[in-house]
């Protein structure tokens, strides 16, 4: 049975951010793409359990996260190639961030406990609310909040940052950050 066109669109539309989330979990692009593929297969096999009108993206994230935890996490770092391979997938170094700093950031992120990392990514990058993130991670909202806070604190620690001045010589960005918003 062919899938509904709106489902197909919604699923495909979620793929880019599913990949970004998966990479942040796996630290390896190939494995992340396998994880996304398995997620899509599972989702489509269980599409009946998706409630139309609810957030397709959140539903897929939940499946991906559960699958990662049950299947991938134990294999984690077995095939760690981390930086080299990951860096290859980054097409453009963001202009406003120094290369060294950006690498340090990714390395620090990879060192976070996975609970904290996923909470931080869901809330800080995927654009989910604390409530949605709590639903995806099957925990209380307060738990997500504290994981996000601990993740930030730990990242700053790992990067040796206590104030924005320590972010390095990137004066322009700091000036913008300080004056702006």
């Amino acid at each position, binding site marked *: 049975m062919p899938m509904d066109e709106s489902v197909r669109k919604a699923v495909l539309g979620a*793929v880019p951010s599913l990949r*970004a989330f998966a990479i942040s979990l796996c630290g390896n692009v190939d494995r992340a793409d396998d994880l996304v593929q398995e997620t899509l297969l599972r989702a489509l096999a269980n599409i009946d359990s998706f409630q139309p009108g609810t957030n397709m993206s959140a539903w897929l994230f939940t499946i991906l996260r559960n699958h990662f935890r049950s299947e991938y996490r134990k294999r984690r770092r077995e095939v760690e190639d981390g930086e080299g391979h990951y860096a290859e997938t980054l*097409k453009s170094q*963001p202009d406003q961030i120094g290369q060294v*700093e950006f690498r340090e950031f990714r390395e620090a992120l990879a060192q976070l406990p996975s609970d904290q990392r996923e909470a931080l990514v869901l809330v*800080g990058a995927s654009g989910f609310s604390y409530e949605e993130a709590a639903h995806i991670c099957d925990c209380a909202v307060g738990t997500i909040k504290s994981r996000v806070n601990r993740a930030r604190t730990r990242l700053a620690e790992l990067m*040796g*940052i206590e104030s924005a001045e320590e972010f390095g010589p990137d004066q322009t960005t700091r000036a913008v950050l300080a004056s702006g918003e």
Partner: protein
Amino acid sequence: MNDRKPMGQQKPMEPAATNRSKKGGGNAKPAKLSRDVQARLGQQLRAMYDDVVSQGVPDRFNDLLNRINGGKKDGQ
């Protein structure tokens, strides 16, 4: 004549440590991060994430959905 030795494995004195006494904290004090630090971390996180997002949908996934859509019965 200068007494300074090249610092090999010898631990340097780090005179800078004095004016930033709080640095290098191994202590697990849950210090509140300043807004600009949080903003900067958030910026990096999103830059990393958005970079992947901007790659769009790799062919592999388009093909996968087309294959599934192409009349495969469900259940494997």
